[in-house]
């Protein structure tokens, strides 16, 4: 019984939601403030100052989404839209290795499993399931987002779309700001639609800028106020003393909270005691 074709009632949505798995960030503390990890069917914006680890987290999610179902993951694939050229494939390989070694640590008996499971747990296998688009202008970015609808229809096992960063080209060379706002609001609705229709997580990495509010300059995410409404969740990465922290700034279902995390040689992990000597990348 429904008033509108295709509408769902909240009870059915609740049971759908409860059966959903979330994409782990690699850090338990971070997962905790995110309600288990990055959620499918939602658009999550991640912003932060240069070098704080946005791209690292983006790559980590592209790897973690592929953790096979038998090891508690989603077993999905990833689309990575790189607008800045910051995707370093050697680093992706390292993070994939780190992810695999953690899986093997948690499931010590997996060595006995069938050879097919072993074959899955190869870094090459993880890399083969990341679809990479290199975008060089805002026109290409709009084209890619439009084309995604068709692409995802043909690749139904994609569970995450990462755009790193959503900001770059729009900040470089879009002159008419009012038009930019309209185009961006159209894009954000398309991303929302993709997330919902294909049951996947959309993660937008965003740069920060300085903004004049309440008599002083503060850091804020780029692209303006209108854009700030166009995500379901917003996570801001920042430095708190000597540690990297993530702050959940916006979420319809979770309280505002902060948690520490670390970027190690293996990827994004929990922050450990402050005296911990960081693993050097060989």
């Amino acid at each position: 019984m429904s008033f509108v074709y295709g509408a769902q009632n909240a009870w059915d949505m609740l049971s759908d939601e409860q059966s959903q798995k979330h994409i782990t960030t690699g850090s338990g503390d971070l997962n905790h403030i995110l309600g288990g990890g990055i959620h499918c069917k939602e658009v999550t914006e991640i912003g932060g100052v240069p070098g704080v680890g946005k791209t690292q987290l983006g790559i980590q999610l592209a790897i973690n989404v592929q953790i096979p179902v038998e090891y508690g993951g989603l077993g999905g694939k990833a689309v990575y839209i790189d607008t800045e050229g910051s995707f370093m494939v050697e680093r992706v390989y390292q993070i994939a290795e780190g992810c695999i070694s953690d899986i093997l640590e948690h499931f010590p008996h997996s060595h006995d499993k069938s050879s097919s499971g072993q074959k899955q747990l190869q870094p090459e296998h993880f890399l083969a399931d990341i679809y990479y688009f290199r975008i060089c202008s805002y026109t290409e970015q709009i084209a890619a987002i439009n084309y995604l609808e068709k692409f995802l229809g043909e690749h139904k096992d994609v569970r995450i779309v990462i755009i790193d960063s959503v900001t770059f080209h729009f900040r470089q060379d879009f002159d008419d700001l009012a038009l930019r706002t309209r185009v961006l609001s159209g894009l954000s609705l398309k991303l929302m639609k993709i997330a919902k229709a294909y049951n996947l997580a959309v993660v937008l990495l965003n740069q920060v800028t300085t903004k004049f509010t309440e008599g002083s300059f503060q850091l804020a995410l780029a692209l303006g106020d209108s854009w700030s409404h166009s995500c379901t969740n917003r996570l801001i990465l920042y430095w708190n003393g000597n540690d990297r922290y993530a702050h959940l700034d916006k979420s319809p279902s979770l309280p505002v909270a902060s948690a520490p995390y670390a970027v190690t040689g293996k990827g994004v992990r929990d922050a450990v005691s402050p005296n911990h000597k960081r693993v050097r990348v060989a």
Partner: protein
Amino acid sequence: MANMPISEMRLPPHLAHLLAARRLDTAKDVLSLPEVELMAVLDAGLPTTRAAVAHVSEAACPPCQTALALLEECVRLGGGGRLATTLRGLDEALGGGIPMGKLTEVVGPSGIGKTQFCLKLALLAALPEYYGGLDGRVVYIDTESKFSSRRMIEIGQKSFPQIFRQEGLAQKMAGRILVMRPTSLADFTKSLEQMKVTLLQHDVKLLIVDSMAALMSLENEKATAGFRQHPLRWALSFIKSIAEFSRIPVVVTNQVRSQSNDDGYHFSFEVDRKDGNNCAERFDSHLIAALGIQWAHAVTVRLVFESHSGHRFMKVAKSPMSPAVAFPFVVESSGITLLSDEGIDVTGPEITSIRCQGQNVLAR
């Protein structure tokens, strides 16, 4: 792809005619209009408009690759492509050296050794492969007239005495460096525009811009405040695309300025701790990079050169490959030399800070 003519996209004829009739000639023309405005321009219904957008988007979207294919390509091109700096500790931290196809920035106060570092890189890129170089030409954009062939040869002779004993090698190396001295930003962008061709023609293996900030500050005095960022943005995307399509390392230097009170360094939700512990962390002379936060976002690797505790340090402040480490260094007649190849781990705000304490402030 963005400027691809619609006529080459092999659209269904009725859509191609419709777009042509409205003078929408490129993907950019079509895609930078919101849907409703495009409907108005085309005077067409929603299904037609959406079909046109879908076709144009598919044609204009760059091809998709898997990360594995990227890795294989990397391996085929020789181990990811690095320009070794011969500073062993730094090379290890960066996974082999300055990455090709990426933008690497060197930032630091004046006189710390940025240009020395650039000269050394220029020399290394010019050296024959046999000696660990790239055996190529170097485009050196020298905005402050600091490039000195004599100094570069001196660095070469002191660092590789056995090689430079060869007759005429020094001249040959110096001849491989193409120095450009643009006098204005327009001049600079013009030379950049012509560069893609040059790069292909001359086997250029390294592009150095020393310094980017000087060029921009030149321009700032003329331009109005609102327009200020614009040429920088343009130059930024252009330099990045050169790096990527020519697969060469691009190194730019950036100056510093002192931090003014207006510089926002906190998010609004951090407000309560602004006055607290953070003041203690402020260093006696606090400097920030002259090109702002947007620039910092765009560089792939950022090396900070700074001085404190009586030493000069080079610090890997941003790199997708490695954690933040610092190396003490000195500038000798043979150029920059690391005092230790064992990096010092850096954490927290120290990673991004730039310190400049006089050399006389020695360790207590």
